[in-house]
């Protein structure tokens, strides 16, 4: 997919962000186009999670712009970012453990007051394994089920852009496959996805395009299949 001819949904321009004195992201640029699945890969500490948090307003950007559908959303509080249609799944602690499965989805759909039941029904249709456990507390789910619930909580709002922070972290290989299959399904339904992943090889197989981030800066970018076969990426980030 050529991002110069397709309308871009998200455009991160020269973004710098950090915590206190420490600068984690330094002048990062990336784009996500309509219908696209984009992966950001890179070693531990490259700033991938900070990039996600800066996009949704959990970390205030130091400088740069985050354009969503052409509007600069950099520095907006998270609840206003969500209201514009960006849903985000954090890497850890991404469900409300003391709430039931259904209540988790209700919180995901907090911003819509009408048609809640239809939304829940659609979400349960997409995640049938959760429907059977809708009255169970999320804290009692297994790691894989929890990750599914985290995805469901984010898509119940029917986002215009989905941000995923390491959806495969801490999961058994079989569960990683299931979660990635679900992500592909969501993307195939037309939802653009921006995903950061430690599991670079799987992420590159899944994504259309990818960026390689290191030390808080862009290193490489390109179609995912090219990066997958690129020698430099293989040597540095795929551990070969």
């Amino acid at each position: 997919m050529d991002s110069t001819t397709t309308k871009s949904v998200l455009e991160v321009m020269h973004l710098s962000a950090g915590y206190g004195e420490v600068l984690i992201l330094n002048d990062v640029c990336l784009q996500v186009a309509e219908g696209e699945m984009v992966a950001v890969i890179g070693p531990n500490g490259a700033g991938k999670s900070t990039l996600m948090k800066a996009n949704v307003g959990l970390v205030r950007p130091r400088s740069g712009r985050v354009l969503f559908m052409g509007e600069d959303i950099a520095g907006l509080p998270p609840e206003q970012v969500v209201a514009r249609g960006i849903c985000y799944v954090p890497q850890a602690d991404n469900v409300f453990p003391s709430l039931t499965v259904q209540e988790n989805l209700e919180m995901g759909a907090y911003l819509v007051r009408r048609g809640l039941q239809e939304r829940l029904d659609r979400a349960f249709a997409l995640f049938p394994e959760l429907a059977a456990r809708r009255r169970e507390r999320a804290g009692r789910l297994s790691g894989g089920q929890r990750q599914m619930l985290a995805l469901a909580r984010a898509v119940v709002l029917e986002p215009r852009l989905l941000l995923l922070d390491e959806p495969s972290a801490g999961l058994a290989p079989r569960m990683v496959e299931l979660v990635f299959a679900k992500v592909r399904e969501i993307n195939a339904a037309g939802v653009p996805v921006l995903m950061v992943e430690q599991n670079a090889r799987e992420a590159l197989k899944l994504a259309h395009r990818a960026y390689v981030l290191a030390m808080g800066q862009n290193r490489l970018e390109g179609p995912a299949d090219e990066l997958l076969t690129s020698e430099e990426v293989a040597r540095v980030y795929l551990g070969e």
Partner: protein
Amino acid sequence: MAVAARAASLAREGWQGLRYRLEALTGAVLWALVVGFLLGTAVSSPENFAIGLVVGSVYALAALGLTLLYGVLRFAHFAHGDLMMLGGYLAYFALTGIVVGARRDTQLPAALESLPGATSRLGDLTFGYGLVLAALVSCAVLALLCIGLDRAIYRPLRQRRAGIVIFAVASLGVAIAARSLMLLVWGPNPRLYVEGVFPAHRFPFGVQLKSDQVFTLAVAVALAGLVYLLLFRTRLGKAMRAMADNPDLARVSGIATEGVVIRTWALGGALMAVAGVLLALQAQLNPQLGFVVLLPVFAGAILGGIGNPLGALLGALVVAVAQEASVGWELFGRQLDPTYKPGVAFVILIVMLLLRPRGLLGAKT
């Protein structure tokens, strides 16, 4: 290397499994102790048990507010007891219009008790509908006051990302200010809503309770039920629980957290006012009393698991029953003096913090 790493991980799992089992064991033992204690007290001294339930229902309303505030705002609200007492005084003021004067009390020309029939006793209770209205006024005023305090003090601290110690000390300051205000406006002498001696009713097993005490129990049960419905059946209540679970996830779910904070303060303030009025009915209005009850209220919230609403109710009841039952206990051949009641709450608090800081029903971490 691989073998060593595997052995280490096995050892770690074994250790964690052991810890998990130990914790489950202390949990089971504590539950058995609590249930056994409650049953034992109910059988051996039903009259103390009944008073404990009445006092406990006042503590429970206070602990419920405390634990909700802890869950949503994540700090120990040390002003809870004094603001609660202030709620009792606000109801007194709305009812009688009395403030302390230089030589004798001055009374405002208009107050709720000047409404026709406002002080004629409701059934067998000591008070009329005037006090009920006054309590509602106090709820509204205290809710607004709490929201104001949050805007003026706690929100700036939140925005500065202040640590929990700063919040605790700030709320201690509010507590002292509230106590001084009560001393200034109503003086140090205890006051009552209604003067007079009222007989108690006799119930089976030697239990004697006044109508006001039965009323207190009923109000506490009804309010706890309403709060339960709010927390588990409404959008706002679920958002409050979600915030207590994970504030960042709540924000990226689109929950306007500042709005939830305001509503939590309003609910907490209203609960404090009701608890204050009921405490004054059970004991008296006294500027020092709020700080005295803060300790058992905290002990109850921690016993049940701080941040856990059901735990707060249970814990507050247990602490109150223990305090009342302690009056009958003998230690070194002497009967325990009632002035040791706060000590009982302290012992429960310390034992829980040592053995099981997450409480009976599990705390928010």
